[in-house]
């Protein structure tokens, strides 16, 4: 029973981390169709933002809360710069986009090495997030609890924004039918930029969350980029609910398989399952043509 509860929690937690890393990508890749290999480096930028903020403010609790919006802005600005300088010139050349953004990711990694050094840095967790918390006799990690809540909050915000705000309506209109949206007076250029800002900003938020879990080094992004793409592809392009289901399904599967086998075998099995799944449903869990976004 203990194991069951612990592993379900761990699975949800792994899923929430995947979801945070993939949520921004679900917008930029899923909705706009831009393959952004530098998404992982936006996550890294968010993590280093948390580091810089903590160096400046000192207090761990306050700086975590300040870091979240700031990292959103930093990730978002990086995204907008990338979009405005490079990506807008190649919306119809996805292969070139792939190579260009991969190059950008290498440049950003080297930049981080030059600025922050090759060795990893540490962002101490605030006291209220370190150690375990006991609920109904089961012990859970406080930081994982926080990330789970943060992921739920981020997803809810994005879903509500897409559904109820005018920006959300413009984004959905542009994705569903660009020409029609344009002729209805929507500036698709502006919409693209804003979507990219939000998607990249979410990567920054994911970066802050990851400082609670693992290493903050220039390679941080490369550890998550493949999993993030996996979540979006399994979930189905143009779909947020697909990505949500895919993230938690992959997380729970990974944790369960890892508990009964080993970490390496679990990875192999999960990937094999994904490959098999995509054979039957190449479009992912939800198909693009459902005409609904959230």
């Amino acid at each position, binding site marked *: 029973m203990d194991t069951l509860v612990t592993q379900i929690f761990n699975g949800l937690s*792994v899923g929430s981390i995947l979801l945070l890393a993939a949520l921004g990508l679900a917008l930029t890749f899923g909705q706009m169709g831009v393959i952004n290999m530098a998404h992982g480096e936006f996550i890294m930028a968010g993590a280093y933002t948390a580091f810089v903020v903590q160096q400046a403010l000192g207090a761990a609790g306050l700086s975590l809360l300040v870091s979240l919006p700031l990292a959103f802005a930093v990730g978002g600005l990086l995204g907008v710069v990338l979009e405005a300088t490079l990506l807008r010139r190649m919306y119809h050349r996805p*292969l070139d986009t792939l*190579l260009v953004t991969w190059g950008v990711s290498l440049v950003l990694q080297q930049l981080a090495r030059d600025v922050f050094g090759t060795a*990893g840095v540490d962002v101490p967790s605030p006291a209220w997030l370190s150690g375990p918390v006991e609920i109904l006799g089961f012990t859970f990690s406080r930081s994982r609890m926080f990330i789970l809540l943060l992921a739920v909050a981020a997803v809810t915000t994005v879903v509500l924004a897409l559904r109820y705000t005018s920006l959300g309506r413009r984004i959905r209109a542009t994705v569903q039918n660009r020409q029609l949206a344009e002729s209805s007076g929507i500036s698709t250029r502006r919409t693209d930029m804003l979507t990219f800002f939000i998607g990249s900003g979410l990567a920054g938020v994911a970066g802050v969350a990851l400082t609670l879990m693992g*290493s903050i080094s220039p390679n941080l992004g490369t550890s998550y980029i493949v999993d993030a793409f996996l979540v979006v*592809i399994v979930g189905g392009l143009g779909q947020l609910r697909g990505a949500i289901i895919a993230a938690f399904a992959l997380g729970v599967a990974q*944790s369960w398989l*890892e508990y009964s086998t080993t970490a*390496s075998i679990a990875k192999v099995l999960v990937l094999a399952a994904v490959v098999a799944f995509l054979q039957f449903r190449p479009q992912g869990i939800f198909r693009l043509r459902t005409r609904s976004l959230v």
Partner: protein
Amino acid sequence: MVGSGAQRMRRALAGLAVLSLSLGIAGCGARVDDAGGSGDTAASCVDTSGDSVKVGLLNSRSGTMAISENTVYNSLALAAEQINADGGVLGKQLEIVAEDGASEPTVFAEKAQKLIQSDCVAAVFGGWTSSSRKAMLPVFESNDALLFYPVQYEGLESSENIFYSGATTNQQIIPALDYLKEQGATSLFLVGSDYVFPQTANKIIKAYAEDAGIEILGEEYAPLGHTDFSTITAKVRDAGADAVFNTLNGDSNVAFFKEYRALGLTAETMPVMSVSIAEEEVGGIGVDNIVGQPVAWNYYQTIDTPENQKFVADFKARYGDDKVTSDPMEAAYTSMFLWKAMVEKADSFAVPDVQAAADSVSFDAPEGTVTVNGDNHHLAKTSLVGKIGPDGLIYTEWSSGEPIEPDPYLESYPWASGLTG
């Protein structure tokens, strides 16, 4: 290029697949043979006629290992500068030829070939991962050249053409186990990265444990670069061993220790003995997450000898006050002075002369006096177990007291007979 969105996407995804496939192939590298298998033992082209002699530094300056190998490069460069300031080797100034191993074993083999055959260096210093060493070994043997390898490793190797200045297993892992046993540990949990060093180390640990009556309650491997340790730490906690033996490598350590602490496990409740965490790594893991945990090495920055105080002061003066010194850095620094001593004893830069002169050459290194074993080309060195202090430095807790003779094949340990046979 006109196409529907779906078509474009499919093409792009195919491109993604091709890209990752080609990266994978580059990573697997089947080209070691080209670099090392030619078998020509052309006469050395080392030029010692002038007033300088070339030495090669081969470290990963880029890629995932750069984080560690840059520090080794720095201490090698410092050693060369000091040797030059002191009059050089046999009156000749050292001229450094630096190459980037790029964290790829195949690149290490190619660059080693280049250093030996095109640059005609007298000796090469560098390498970190066991796979980089294994890739370079045939190159050095077929060219009859010299490599000085500065990192502790899994043992079970000795080449005429390599000098190993880091610890072999009986100078690090076995003393660490002795220490845990002395502390009263009767059960262990093994956690490691999924590659050659942890797997071999754990085989040795299991053989030792069987002989010493220590129970192994679990053995878990995480893929290199694994970032989520929730399940592995849950298994560790549930098993409830007296101590954990950790052979994780790289960034995985950060995720592991953060998770470990988040579950409320500490150095007091369940100590984690690590063999790949040195001063350099503690900062990235976060002192709070690892304070009080034991680590096994042969050198700590806090060693209180005049040689070490000078080394630390020189290193900080050269590279900055915030820099720390660690075991592999010290072993690399020491290896260049050992090569100098061997060359001066042989009165020759020629490889056969240096090899012949190597036995019992010793050097008062920052870690204490080390002596070359002419048979297996390892060093006799003192083993230490230290604890990580609140300032992030490591303080000696236990010492073997005197240098331990290297025994890479563990021939002097009866319980290990099944491992090497």
